[in-house]
C-alpha cells in the first residue's frame, strides 16, 4: 500500500487533481453581487416567522401573515445599503435567533458547525488506523500469505475458490 502511495503515477495524478481543483475554485470564486442576488441569497438564510417552518424565500403558503412584511423589510434593508451581516443581525434582534435559517457562527452555535466535521475527521482517522491495524502486522500478512499458499496448493480449496469466483462475479462478488 505504501508503495502505491509513493508511486510516481499516484504522485503526479494527485498533483494534477490538486491543480484542477484549485483552478476550478479560483475561477468560480470570481464574481460580483447585485441586489436581486442578495435578496435571493438572504431570503434563503432567513425563516418565515409565521410558524410554517419554511425559508422566507420559499414561503408561499396561502394567506401567510408574515412573509410579505419580512420580504419588504429585507428588500428595504438591501436598498439601504446594509451589509449581509447587519441585515441578519437586525432580523435576529427583531424576531429572535430562530429567524436565522442556520445557527450563527458565534458563541455556542460554533459547535453546530464544528461537530460534524470533527466527527467526520475523527471517524476518517479511526477508519484508516483500523484498516492499517488489520492489515499492518507482519504476522497477519505472513499468516494470510501462508494460508493463501496452502489454499492454492490444495486442489479442493482451489476448486472452491474458483467456484466462489464464478458464482459471485468478477472479484468475489459485490
Amino acid at each position, binding site marked *: *500500500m505504501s508503495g502505491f502511495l509513493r*508511486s510516481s503515477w499516484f504522485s503526479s495524478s494527485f498533483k494534477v487533481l490538486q491543480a484542477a481543483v484549485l483552478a476550478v475554485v479560483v475561477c*468560480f470564486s*470570481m*464574481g*460580483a*453581487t*447585485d441586489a*436581486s*442576488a*442578495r435578496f*435571493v*441569497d438572504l431570503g*434563503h438564510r432567513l*425563516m418565515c416567522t409565521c*410558524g410554517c417552518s*419554511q*425559508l422566507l424565500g*420559499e414561503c*408561499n403558503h*396561502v*394567506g401567510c401573515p408574515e412573509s410579505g412584511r419580512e420580504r419588504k423589510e429585507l428588500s428595504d434593508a438591501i436598498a439601504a445599503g446594509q451589509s449581509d451581516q447587519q441585515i441578519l443581525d437586525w432580523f435576529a434582534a427583531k424576531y*429572535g*435567533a*430562530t*429567524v*436565522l*435559517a*442556520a*445557527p*450563527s457562527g458565534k*458563541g*455556542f*452555535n460554533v459547535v*453546530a*458547525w464544528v*461537530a*460534524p*466535521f470533527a466527527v*467526520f475527521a475523527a*471517524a*476518517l482517522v479511526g*477508519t*484508516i488506523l483500523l*484498516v*492499517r491495524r*488489520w*492489515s499492518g502486522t507482519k504476522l497477519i*500478512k505472513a499468516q*494470510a500469505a501462508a494460508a493463501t499458499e496452502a489454499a492454492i496448493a490444495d486442489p479442493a480449496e482451489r476448486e472452491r475458490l474458483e*467456484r466462489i*469466483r*464464478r*458464482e459471485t*462475479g*468478477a*472479484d*468475489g*462478488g*459485490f
Partner: protein
Amino acid sequence: MATFGSLSLLIALALAVYNLFFGAVALRLMATGQASRVAPDRLASSARRAGIAGFLAISCAAFALVWAAFTNNFSIAYILAHSNRALPVAYKFAALWSGQEGSLLLWGWLLAAFSFVLRLRHKTDVRLYAYAGTIMAGIQVFFLAVLNFAVRPFALYLGPPVDDGNGLNPLLQYPEMVIHPPMLYLGYVGFAVPFAFALAALMMRYPGEKWIKITRTWTLVTWLFLTCGIFLGMHWAYAVLGWGGYWGWDPVENASFMPWLTGTAFLHSVMMQEKKGMMKSWNMWLIFSTFMLTLLGTLLTRAGLVSSVHAFAQSSIGTWFTVFMILVAAVFLFVYILNRSHLKGEHTVDSLVSRESSFLFNNLILLTACFVVLWGTLFPILSEFVQGSKVTVGAPFYNRVAVPIGLFLLFLMGVCPLLPWRATSIKSIKRNFIVPTAAFWVAVIVAVLSGLSVYSAGKFDVGGLYAVLAIGAAAAAFTAVASEYVRGAGVIARQAKKNLAAAGWMLIRRNTRRYGGFMVHTGVALVFIGLAGSAFTKTAEQELALHGTMTIGPYRIECAGFTQDSNDNYQSEYAQLNVWKGSQMQFQMFPEKRVYLVSQQPQTMVAIHSTIGWDLYVVYEGTNPDTGQPIIKAILNPLVSWIWGGLGVMVLGTLIALTPSLKPNAARAAAPATEGANR
C-alpha cells in the same frame, strides 16, 4: 364499533403479553434444560399461536376504525377529528393514519403483520424464529400498551351530538397520501424484524452467519419500503406544499432519512460479515441503531420536541417512547456485554485500497451523514438546554455540511465496485478508473456548456459548484457500473455466442445480487443528478390580467381565463394558462387554490408539466384584492424527473437483488463455457 375496536385492542395486548411471557419462559427452559410440567416446545408453540391470534385481533381493531370512518361514526373522537361526510372514499381510508391514534394503530398492525409472517415461517429455523418471535412480541406489547392506555383510537366523543366531522387536513387530501404513510411505516416497522433476529442470534449465540441470510430478504424489503416511502413523501411535498422543492430538511423528513442511512450502511456491512466473517459487532450495533432511530424519529416528531412543517399528529407520548427506548437499549447492552465474545471476527484487510476498505469507508460516510442529520435535528434542543434559547437548523446548514458528504458518498459509490477484494495493483486501478474519470470530466464540461453555471445573478454560488461536481461524479459512478456490466456481458457474449442483450440478461440472472446492487447504484446516481438540478432553479411571479403573459425559461405563459368551481368538499379558484414556446402553444395548465368547506383551510393545488430536462411548476397564489386578477408564480425546476426516474431504477434494482440467482448448475447449462465472463 368503538367497543368492538377497544376490545380487539385489549385482546391483542393480552395475546402479545402471553406470547412474550410464555415465549420467554419456554426459551429459558430450553436453554437451561430444566424440567417443567409443560414441555418447553409445546409452550413455545402456544406462544407462537398467541402471536398469530394477536395479529387477527389487531386486524379487527384496524378494520373497526376504517369502518367507523366509512360509516361516519362521529361518536368516536378520532373519526370526528379526522373525517367528514363529504370526504372522498379513498381519503376516508387514509383517515386511519391521518392522526396520532390512527397512525400508531397502523404501526401496531403492520408490526403484527410482519410478526405474523415471521411466525408462519418458523420452520426455517424453529429456535431462532422462536427467539425472534418473542422479541417481536416484546415490541408489540409496547405499541399495544400505548394504544390501549395512552392514545386510544376508539375514545368516545363526549360532547353534544354532531352531524358532521371536522374533516381531513387539506394537506393530506392528495392521492399519494393514501400510499406514502403505509410505505414509510412499513419501512420503519420492518427494521424491527432484522433487529429481532440480530438480538435473537446474539442471545442464543447463534453459530455462523445464517441469520444474516435469513434476514437479508426482510432487510432489503424493508429498505425498499422505506426508500419508496421517503420518495413518495418528497413527491407529495413537491406537488402539495407548493414551494417548488421536495426536501426541506424538516425534522419529519430527517426522521425517515436517518434509519435509511444506517439501514443502507447495514445492508453493505453485512456483506463483509457474510463473505469475510468481519464486522460482527459492528453489524449488531448498526441494526440496533437503525431500530432505535425509527423509535427516535417517532419520539421527535410525534411528541412535539421539534417543530415540523408536516407533523400532523402530535401528543404527549414522549414519556412512553423514552422509557421504551431506554428499555430496548438496556436489554441490547445487557445481551451484548454478556455474549460479545461470540462476535469475535476475522479482521484482516490486505490493503487500504480494496473492496473491504471501501465498505468501511462507505459505512463511515453513511454514518457521518446520519450523525449530521441527527445533530442538525437535535441541535435546537441542545441549544435551548445550553443557551436558554432555540435556534433554527434549516436547509443552509445541511447544504453546507451534508452536501459535501453526499458528494463523497457518490464518489465512493463509483469507486467501490471497481475495487477487488483483498488488494489491487496500480495497473488494475489505471485500467478500471480511466473510463469513469473521463466520464466525470466529460459530464462536467457538458453540464457547463449546457448552461449550468456556478454563478447565480453574477455571484459565485457554491451550490452551483456542488451541482456540477455531483453531475460529474454521478456520470463517473454510472460509467463505472456500466463498464463492469458491459465487460462481463461481453465475455459471456463471446464465449456463449449470444448477442450482448441476451448475454447481459444472463449475467444479471447469474448474480442478481451483484447486478441488482449495481442497478440501485445507478438509480442513486440518477437521483443525485436530479438533486443537482435544484441549484439552477428559476422563479418568476406576476399578476396576470386576462391574456396577459409572463416569461420563464423558454416558456411564455398566457392567462386564458380564471374561474371558480365547487363541490361538497371544497370551493376552488383556478386559472387556465396557455403555455407557449416560440409561436406555438404547447400545453395548458390549471393551477388551483381550494378552500375546504368544513375546516375552512385554504390549500394550493400546483400544476406541474414534467419533461426530462425540467419541470414547469405553476402555483395559483390567489387574487390581488385590489384588481381581482390572479397572481401566478412559475418555477422552472431542472432535472426533477430524474429523481423520480432514479427511484424507479432503484426499485427495479432492489427487486432484481431480491430475486434468487440461477443455481451454478442451471447457469452452466444455460450458458456453457462462460468461466471467463466474470473475470
